[in-house]
């Protein structure tokens, strides 16, 4: 049973169709790399999964439960979507850390706010908050930034900020962690540290969807690759197949352009 199943996902912006019926599924513990040129729709696909864009057609199921169906308005109310969102985590290209909070608070904030909704929060307040903080500190160990807990985002390098952003997404224990070109906004010498963290997550069998331009990295870290062009899935399969022996003409042309660049 796939943990994520996307069927016929469509999205238009005005008259421009960006996604024209995307189908794919993802098994638990699998890392899926999505590649494609700029404007192919891969970022839009990721934003649809996180409901930053509402798809115009198709459905999204997590653990066999339909969490979004474009033909069923009941799945589209704001409150519903806010809850369903928590199945997914998203790491942005531009980090988007909250500048007024320390690295630690960036990671704990959402958990604290969710905990406040719980019925038993008032009695066990102290305990719950310490628990959240301790879990966050474990995440900082994982990303190798335990010495930067109380730094503000502007005091961190881009690579460090992105690692904190990864910890922030992980803190809510999403079923599926999405990455939107996580290293594209970084200086080349800083991409390594971020890729290392993602690689360690893959080793721990974290379920991930990674939109990336780093072909080498996609090959190493992913279990499957999806090549998207002009809003459709052109080719899907094992990284060795898609990236080394592509069958489709469009995939070949795309990869050629990349190796020449």
């Amino acid at each position: 049973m796939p943990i994520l199943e996307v069927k016929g996902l469509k999205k238009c912006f005005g008259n421009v169709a960006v996604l024209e019926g995307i189908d794919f599924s993802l098994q638990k513990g699998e890392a899926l790399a999505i590649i494609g040129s700029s404007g192919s729709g891969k970022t839009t696909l990721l934003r649809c999964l996180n409901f930053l864009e509402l798809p115009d057609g198709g459905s999204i199921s997590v653990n066999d439960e339909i969490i979004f169906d474009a033909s069923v308005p009941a799945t589209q109310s704001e409150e519903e979507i806010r809850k369903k969102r928590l199945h997914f985590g998203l790491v942005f290209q531009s980090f988007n850390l909250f500048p007024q909070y320390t690295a630690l608070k960036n990671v704990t904030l959402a958990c604290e706010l969710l905990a406040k909704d719980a019925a038993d929060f008032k009695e066990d307040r102290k305990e719950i908050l310490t628990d959240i903080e301790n879990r966050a500190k474990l995440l900082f160990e994982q990303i190798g930034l335990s010495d930067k807990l109380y730094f503000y985002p502007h005091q961190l390098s881009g690579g460090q900020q992105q690692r904190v952003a990864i910890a922030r997404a992980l803190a809510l224990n999403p079923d599926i962690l999405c990455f939107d070109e996580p290293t594209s906004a970084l200086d080349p010498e800083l991409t390594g540290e971020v890729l290392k963290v993602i690689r360690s997550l893959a080793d721990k069998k974290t379920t991930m969807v990674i939109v990336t331009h780093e072909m080498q990295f996609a090959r190493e870290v992913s279990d499957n690759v999806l090549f998207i062009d002009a809003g459709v899935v052109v080719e899907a399969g094992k990284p060795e197949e898609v990236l080394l022996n592509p069958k489709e003409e469009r995939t070949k042309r795309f990869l050629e352009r990349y190796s020449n660049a």
Partner: protein
Amino acid sequence: MNFLTVTTKLLEGFWLSCIIFFFTLFGAMPLGLLVSFGSMSKFRPLKIISKGFVWVIRGTPLMLQLMIVYYGPGLMFGLTAFPKMTAVLIAFIINYTAYFSEIYRSGIEGVPRGQYEAGQVLGMTKTQIFFKIILLQVVKRIVPPMSNEIITLVKDTSLARVIALMEIIMVAFTYTTKGVIWPLFYTGVFYLVFCGGLTLLFGFIERKLDYFRV
């Protein structure tokens, strides 16, 4: 006409200037927020009204607005005029609402979309996103332009004399008929001290918010 009597007289005038100043702030700061929401609204009629209001008010002199509020009701409709202070406050609050609304708008629109989106994907409600993430960033962005505008307001209070409200400069000016100029210079001291205090206050707030960058 010794120093002490002049000081007392000027203080009386300055008291009126202070009333104009504080009540204008008190009225225009929240109203400006309302108008800025109007200017950013997706509902077109509201947006057009708000933008039109800002255009008219910022595009005409405060002195003209003051005259219209004070003389308008009587000359146009034969009504009794507002008391002077009321007329001044109406004109000032309307005028500063327009300016503040534009400062708020630029502050709110300046917060990157990514900040809202980061809050959304973390499952926060709209209210949580506004109060926990956006608000403080907006405050930090608007402190410098607001301090500018508020310091301008201190000096704009002197415009109240066009409808003969006895604010501090008008008081000092009465002495010139007796051939004495120094009370006019003396009013400058009041303004300088008041604006100096505000400058210190805003500097303090800016330093308080200096621990993060937006």
